[in-house]
């Protein structure tokens, strides 16, 4: 009986140890207050054309790599805990995306996010929300839905939009976007 208990204890301990990294990776961003659940539009529009999930660990490495080139950029990146992007091509009608846009907007309002900028045109909706907890910025969310694509961006951590241009110049990365 004592041996059986000991074996169960050892097996349970090993299972717990092995599952810890997986659980930690899954919950790394979801547990943060700046995280936003955008839902899933893949059933309607297929897989997103762009999916980005950068966690705090990878961002730290990017920040360290940037420290020699630009300490300011490195400092800005060090305040980020995660970056998530989902972009869907809307070849069919955009109604489902607009509906998801509205649902997410309602969820943001009910969970303490504050609207910064909203644009409501017939063919284009843009929404920028910010989450602050005890005066600390915890995240920013940008959603754009037009007739061609739905863009969901969630930056977890602190980000000053005024510093974006500086960071873009510093990165010197060619990003081809349709900025109509």
């Amino acid at each position: 009986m004592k041996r059986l208990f000991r074996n169960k204890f050892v097996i349970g301990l090993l299972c717990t140890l092995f599952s810890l990294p997986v659980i930690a990776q899954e919950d790394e961003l979801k547990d943060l207050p700046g995280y936003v659940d955008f839902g899933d539009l893949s059933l309607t529009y297929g897989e997103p054309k762009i999916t980005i999930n950068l966690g705090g660990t990878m961002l730290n490495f990017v920040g360290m790599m940037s420290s020699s080139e630009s300490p300011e950029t490195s400092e800005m990146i060090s305040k980020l805990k995660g970056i998530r992007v989902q972009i869907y091509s809307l070849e069919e009608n955009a109604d489902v995306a607009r509906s998801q846009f509205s649902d997410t907007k309602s969820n943001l309002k009910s969970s303490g996010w504050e609207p910064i900028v909203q644009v409501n045109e017939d063919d284009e909706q843009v929404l920028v929300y910010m989450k602050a907890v005890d005066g600390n910025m915890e995240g920013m969310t940008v959603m754009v839905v037009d007739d061609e694509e739905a863009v969901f961006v969630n930056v977890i951590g602190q980000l000053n939009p005024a510093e974006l241009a500086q960071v873009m110049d510093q990165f010197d990365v060619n990003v081809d976007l349709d900025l109509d």
Partner: protein
Amino acid sequence: MNEYDEKWEERINALLDGELSADDAERLKAEASDDRELARAIVEAYQLQKAMDEVKVERAPASLSKRLNAIPREHSKARTFSFLQPRWAMALAAIPLVVITLSLMQPDTPSASEIAKARQEMAIAFAYLDKANAITSREIESSVGHTLADAVTGSVNRAIKSQNLNSKEKEA
């Protein structure tokens, strides 16, 4: 044991061991001649001692001696290879598992190409933020004019920046 045994035991033993002085030995002898119980006790003790002296040391059988002599060696051998015992074998087998588990729990160090890819993805994310910023600025500008649009976007940026400053002050 009778009263004489208790009373005379020490002196009788001393006598038999030759440790009693000549005077004490003569005195004991005189007393024994008057006391039959004492005399009998001295005789019995003497006979017992004689019988003990006549007992020979029997040699143990060779097989038993061999087995008895092997005990210290076996004991020593068991200690040397005690790591083969089940409990130690289980503990040793668990060491690689624990090492692997701990290494899995450590954050992986990404390669240079992975970091470059992450940098590209970050730039894409920021480009889309910039795109949203451009759209909102354009819409505000078309609605309220360029000067007021700058004022609005400026105030938004200041509001966000104040959150960052607030955070910095709290950290300090």
